[in-house]
């Protein structure tokens, strides 16, 4: 009891250094809770937060299996679960010869037959353990991710190892996956937000560049893949010298590493490594162009505005994070305050830099009501232009604090931490990346923000995609004179219906 009161007093005292009215708070401690409850609080003076809590990052313990496979372990003993990810440093960006979609399909096929088990047997075994095993690819990596009650980890790991190391690529399962994917592509045509995203990528990067086509590929590529194609891709990228293992959860380094050694330590490359794939050169848009896709009768227009942004390795990472937070990366950002809170045109407006190994898109986006489409476009460009002059000090401080102060609490779940470790591995972030993150954000100046805004935000050259009811919105959009207007059909974006 005494200890608690003392600790409480310290907490309040330390907060007082930052308070507007230290006397009042000190009084609260001395006089006790009962009296405080009887005095109405002074609501004219909102409580000021005390000094931010220290950054106590969970330790990353690094080991290696006998075949050289790196293993990163973070122990979290709060909940009896574990996350085990096998990360492969190749994704869709490594697809050879326009085989768009082969990375995702190959990765998905791992679970469709492995070792002595069929697709149904793998699913049954994993489900029976109360576990979840998923397989997927992004542009820069692929992964098998296992989440499992820690009591069942030893039972689940051999299944995961079969799936990762001994896939069988049954032909009938490939046909199942193929039909699943072709049908999903067809369904993409239903959703205006999907159409807008696909169109935006296509007009920026074109048909030859990997970033110009959805991760899953096109109907044409999906129809063509054979099990030999998949095996070939698997052998060239699923290799211990192109992989890392992450374990986060209720485990101990000295017990988990031998378990992994037993399952993955004898893994050897089964073919030659894939040569790196070079993207075709791609230029920024030369002039601002408006691309319209008709969705007759749509009550909202889906808007995407932007151009090619930056790679994850950009030296301007921290200024860009802060600049984007001001522009469209938080609830109180300018785009959301303008288009949602001030004008009510939308349920939400935002912006983002999608940073990949190569420069991904920068996009500002919203779904806006049909009869306010041109008004909304005008406000988008008002804000995109307004980010070019210097950002006021209070707004800059708010954005920096929003990003920096929440950072220590963002290492909470096994999923949170494993995602951060994946980023660190895939993008080869420096060892002190996490520990220096907060100070790197706080070091960003107004001049930095203005410099990156001017360098990476070019409202006069942006591609503008609008998916909506053209009969209702086209005249208004044309009247804005944003630039040349091109009409596109859904088939131009997705290809002919599968």
């Amino acid at each position, binding site marked *: 009891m005494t200890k*608690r009161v003392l600790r409480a007093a310290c907490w309040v005292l330390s907060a007082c250094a930052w308070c507007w009215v230290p006397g009042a708070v000190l009084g609260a401690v001395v006089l006790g809770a009962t009296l405080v*409850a009887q005095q109405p609080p002074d609501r004219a003076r909102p409580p000021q*937060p005390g000094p*931010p*809590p220290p950054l106590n990052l969970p330790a990353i313990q690094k080991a290696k299996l006998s075949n050289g496979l790196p293993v990163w372990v973070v122990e979290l003993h709060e909940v009896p679960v574990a996350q085990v990810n096998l990360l492969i440093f190749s994704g869709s960006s490594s697809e050879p010869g326009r085989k768009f979609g082969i990375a995702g399909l190959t990765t998905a096929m791992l679970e469709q037959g492995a070792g002595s088990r069929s697709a*149904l047997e793998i699913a*049954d075994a994993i489900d029976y353990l109360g576990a979840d095993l998923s397989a997927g690819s992004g542009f820069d990596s692929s992964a098998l991710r296992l989440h499992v009650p820690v009591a069942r980890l030893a039972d689940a790991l051999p299944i995961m190892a079969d799936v990762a190391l001994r896939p069988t690529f049954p032909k009938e399962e490939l046909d199942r996956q193929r039909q699943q994917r072709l049908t999903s592509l067809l369904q993409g045509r239903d959703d205006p937000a999907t159409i807008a995203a696909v169109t935006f990528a296509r007009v920026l990067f074109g048909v030859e560049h990997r970033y110009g086509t959805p991760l899953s590929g096109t109907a044409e590529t999906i129809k063509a893949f054979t099990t030999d194609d998949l095996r070939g891709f698997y052998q060239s990228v699923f290799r211990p010298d192109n992989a890392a293992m992450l374990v986060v959860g209720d485990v101990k380094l000295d017990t988990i590493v031998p378990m992994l050694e037993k399952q993955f330590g004898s893994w050897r490359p089964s073919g030659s490594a894939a040569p790196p794939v070079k993207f075709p050169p791609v230029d920024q848009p030369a002039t601002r162009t408006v691309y319209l896709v008709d969705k007759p009768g749509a009550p909202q227009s889906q808007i995407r505005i932007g151009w090619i942004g930056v790679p994850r390795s950009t030296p301007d990472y921290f200024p860009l994070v802060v600049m984007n937070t001001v522009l469209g990366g938080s609830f109180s950002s300018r785009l959301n305050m303008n288009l949602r809170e001030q004008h009510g045109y939308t*349920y939400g407006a935002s912006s983002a830099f999608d940073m990949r190994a190569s420069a991904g898109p920068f996009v500002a986006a919203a779904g806006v009501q049909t009869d306010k489409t041109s008004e909304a476009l005008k406000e988008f460009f008002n804000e995109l232009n307004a980010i070019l002059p210097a950002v006021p000090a209070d707004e800059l401080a708010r954005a920096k604090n929003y990003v920096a*102060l929440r950072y220590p609490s963002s290492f909470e779940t096994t*999923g949170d931490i494993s995602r951060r470790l994946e980023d660190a591995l895939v993008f080869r972030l420096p060892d002190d990346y996490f520990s220096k993150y907060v100070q790197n954000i706080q070091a960003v100046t107004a001049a930095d923000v203005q410099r990156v805004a001017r360098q990476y935000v070019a409202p006069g050259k942006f591609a503008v995609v609008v998916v909506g009811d053209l009969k209702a919105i086209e005249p208004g959009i044309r009247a804005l004179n944003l630039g040349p207007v091109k009409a596109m059909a859904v088939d131009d974006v997705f290809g002919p219906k599968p």
Partner: protein
Amino acid sequence: MKRAALLFVLALAAPAAAQPKLEIPYTQFRLPNGLTVILHEDHSVPMVTVNVWYHVGSARERTGRTGFAHLFEHLMFMGSGHVKPGEFDSWLESAGGDNNGSTQNDRTNYYINVPSNALELALFLESDRMGYLLDTMTPKTVDAQRDVVKNERRQSVENQPYGIAQVLINEMLYPEGHPYHWPVIGYMEDLTAASYDDVVAFFKKFYAPSNASLVVAGDFDTAVARRLIEKWFSDIKAGPPPEPMAIPAAALTSRKTRTVGDKVQLPRLYLAWLTPRHLAPGDATLDVLADILAGGKNSRLYKRLVYDMQIAQDVSAFQASAALSSSFMIIATARPGHTAEELQKVIDEEIVKLQTEPPTAHELERSLNQIEASFYNRLERVGGFSGKGDQLNAYYTETGDPDWFNEDVARYRALSASDIRAAAAEFLPLDKRVELTIEPEKKP
């Protein structure tokens, strides 16, 4: 770093899954104005969540004002007596915090997540809108959020493929006048009709501290938090409890069938039944039945429709539990060239099978293991929607006991295969249900 918020005690007679038993320590008290407070310390990361449930949702709306509980939720972020418009979000963001709210049929919840040094700011903001929301409310504020909410409806219903289905299903399941008949998001014309006066009346009727419960969870000291809560929430005036609701009976006496066109490529079938309310006998059984029908590749419906016959793109089943009445849903999308009728025929065959013969012991155990594991997964996060704070508030609201985790797991562990068969027979009659098909619009 200290990570010792949960106490795990090995159960003596552990069932098949051999999971440790869990306890969530908490402190509970009530302020003189009727506000229930629940505190749970967890020092694993330096953050706290302030989570409030108001025991009012769209079920309390009246005809002509549907969607109001949710519109009101939006107004709770627009400032209050001592917080000017915009300051709620900008102060929290300056402190590294974030916040949100959500509305369902029976409740409205709010959370503020902040670094632990900003606990008092979060309590101040939460208390100010509980006590003094109307001081800054104006018709203009209502108009602004009305437009936002209408766009939320457009985005989630009209401009969303199959978005109209859930609206139609509730209209078919529940008779007019039943509080679950209308959608939580409301009808457009009712959103248009909502007025400033409605806001005043709703606040006075439903937002009294005695109709709310406050959970603070995370990295704080219980004694300090208690003092701060007493400081900021004690001046909020008590209000009368809301009158009890008159709830019209709801029962399906026949098949109700409807087919509606939408801008979609593929037909989708929805089957819906009225089922026991949340936590009533049968509710947990139907969760397991849903999993046996459509959870995972080896589930009855997935295996036949998607895996073997390949006539469906997807199939799902779930018990949508709510306080007054639940609904059980099966949803399946046809592959190109196939019809909703084909899907329905197979689904009915599988339902009849489960009505006649219990599932295998393996199927039941697989499902229970998945459900049990989900309880542990849910304990990984403290804040936000579905974090520990939100779950403590949910259990308190529904059972009076914030730490009802083990009792909840026990509901499932008690089930036998014959319980599943009996539930399929009792609650999923083929001749008393809603059958809705959304199909591609015919070209004129």
